[in-house]
């Protein structure tokens, strides 16, 4: 197991290098630059700024310097907000996105899994139809519609929760719900399908024949097999919740990395864009690895593959 993890971690380096290379040349070869819009700046001053940030060197040279910096753990200075380095900005902003993403993950699993089990418990009765109709809504209503509707209902009309703050725990309920709802809906559907599939198999009949309680049959024996597709979905889902919170951060004024990234892209803050993309890519890689490990734990046959 340890060797497997090490081997996978070793593949991260070339993958990240490819991603950095692609992003670097994509953002650099495009028209415009971080200081192009500041008309008040004279030609001379502009040249000085560019020289200061090494932007006047040949592109390949800048690339080599950037990658060399990365290897030392240096993400460079932020071009548009020079008061802090990119690493410092990420250190400030990313924990906020991470926190939001974790709450959303809790919402997604905490609501999705029980809803799916409930639906599969007695298929084609109202305990199936109700959660499944709700999950249909979760899939079809995008979070930038759901979020404002939740605000309108719970914050404006009922005044139970604050509109847009990010301080106390109650501020975090609506953003987490908004971000997690769609994933909860998918998890509920996947759990229901997986469980219905597993419950028709022979070993379940054996478990029932042994006289085990229905709860034990479903939760202990059925769920383990049913969880495979759910876990496979959780990797991209967790990465999506952590890297896809742009809209939710925008709606609820959450000071996270998503908002930071969009501003960086609009302002051509090259180093900030690259830093954010790197963080997101590492997250996706790590979550894929975690999913593979959980799957191997759930199904021992996969361990030897």
């Amino acid at each position: 197991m340890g060797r497997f993890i090490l081997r996978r971690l070793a593949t991260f380096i070339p993958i990240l290098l490819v991603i950095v290379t692609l992003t670097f040349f994509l953002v650099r070869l495009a028209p415009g630059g971080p200081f192009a819009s500041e008309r008040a700046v004279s030609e001379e001053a502009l040249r000085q700024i560019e020289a200061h940030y090494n932007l006047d060197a040949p592109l390949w040279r800048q690339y080599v310097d950037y990658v060399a910096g990365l290897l030392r753990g240096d993400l460079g200075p932020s071009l548009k907000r020079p008061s802090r380095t990119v690493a410092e900005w990420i250190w400030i902003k990313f924990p906020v996105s991470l926190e939001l993403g974790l709450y959303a993950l809790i919402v997604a699993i905490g609501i999705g899994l029980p809803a799916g089990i409930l639906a599969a418990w007695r298929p084609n009765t109202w305990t199936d139809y109700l959660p499944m109709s709700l999950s249909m809504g979760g899939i079809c209503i995008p979070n930038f519609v759901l979020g404002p509707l939740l605000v309108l209902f719970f914050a404006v009309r009922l005044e139970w929760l604050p509109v847009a703050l990010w301080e106390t725990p109650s501020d975090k309920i609506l953003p987490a719900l908004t971000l997690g709802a769609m994933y909860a809906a998918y998890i509920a559907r996947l759990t229901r399908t997986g469980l219905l599939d597993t419950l028709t198999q022979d070993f379940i009949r054996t478990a029932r024949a042994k006289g085990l309680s229905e709860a034990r049959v479903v939760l202990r024996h059925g769920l383990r097999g049913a969880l495979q597709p759910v876990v496979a979905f959780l990797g991209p889902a967790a990465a999506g919740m952590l890297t896809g919170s742009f809209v939710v951060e925008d709606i609820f004024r959450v000071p996270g990395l998503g908002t930071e990234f969009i501003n960086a892209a609009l302002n051509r803050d090259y180093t900030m864009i690259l830093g954010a993309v790197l963080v997101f890519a590492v997250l996706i890689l790590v979550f894929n690895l975690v999913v593979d490990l959980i799957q191997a734990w759930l199904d021992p046959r996969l361990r030897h593959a």
Partner: protein
Amino acid sequence: MHDPTLPLTPDTDAGTSLWRDAFHRLRRNHLAMVGLVLLSIIVILSIVGPWFSAHTFDAQDRDNRLASPSARHWFGTDHLGRDVFVRVLTGGRVSIQVGLAATAVSLLIGVVYGAVAGFQGGRLDNGMMRIVDILYTLPFTIVAIILVTYFGRSLLLVFIAIGAVEWLTMARIVRGQVQSLKEKEFVEAAMAMGLPWRRILFRHLIPNALGPIIVYTTLTIPRVMLLEAFLSYLGLGVQAPMSSWGTLIKEGVAVMEEYPWLLIFPGVALSATLFSLNFLGDGLRDALDPRSSKD
């Protein structure tokens, strides 16, 4: 469904009966049929509706700003007195265009890439699929945001940018199909006849993989539409005075406390479209590939 004058086991090629079979199964799937009908209504209304309306998407009725829904303005008007009904339909046109164009781009890249990799096999296949694996690690929304902020905000570029990041899964599906199909006898026969590999690939292999391709295409369209709405919501997609469901929702959110219909109508239009395409896609999957049927 079945024409009684035809023999029960027709001599025609099996393809016809496969499609007929699939259509039969699709018709029994109520959710998919509701989706199909709803989708047809939305598409026809979006395309035809603006021609028959007394208003245009950018005409301002200054005496009726922020008016509630009425006989004159069915969905009310926005802060400039523009008719929301026509603006929602215009947004629908944008969504349909983006959905079709971006999906076409992703379909083209994905099918050709996947088919070539699957058919050639060996080192080429290995290398091509490794590239797909790496691209999978790129955060999609982020790539789309970079492409859109950098390469202008024209609608055409939005299509291409979205299509260019959405082809990976299609490539994997097509590769898998082609890989298993090329072991079949009819491909060996085609090779024995000395047909060039391009002809075998495009005339024999891809048509036989059409089922999964159609299913995944149907499921790509709503993803692409959602991405367009998302980018437009963030102010990175369709620009004023054009309307898109994303920009309309953004405008609606700003005033939702006093004028909720400005959020509700475009929100419902987008959700209903996503609903119909998702369930039509699910229905098609069950119909075209009963083995992978989920319920």
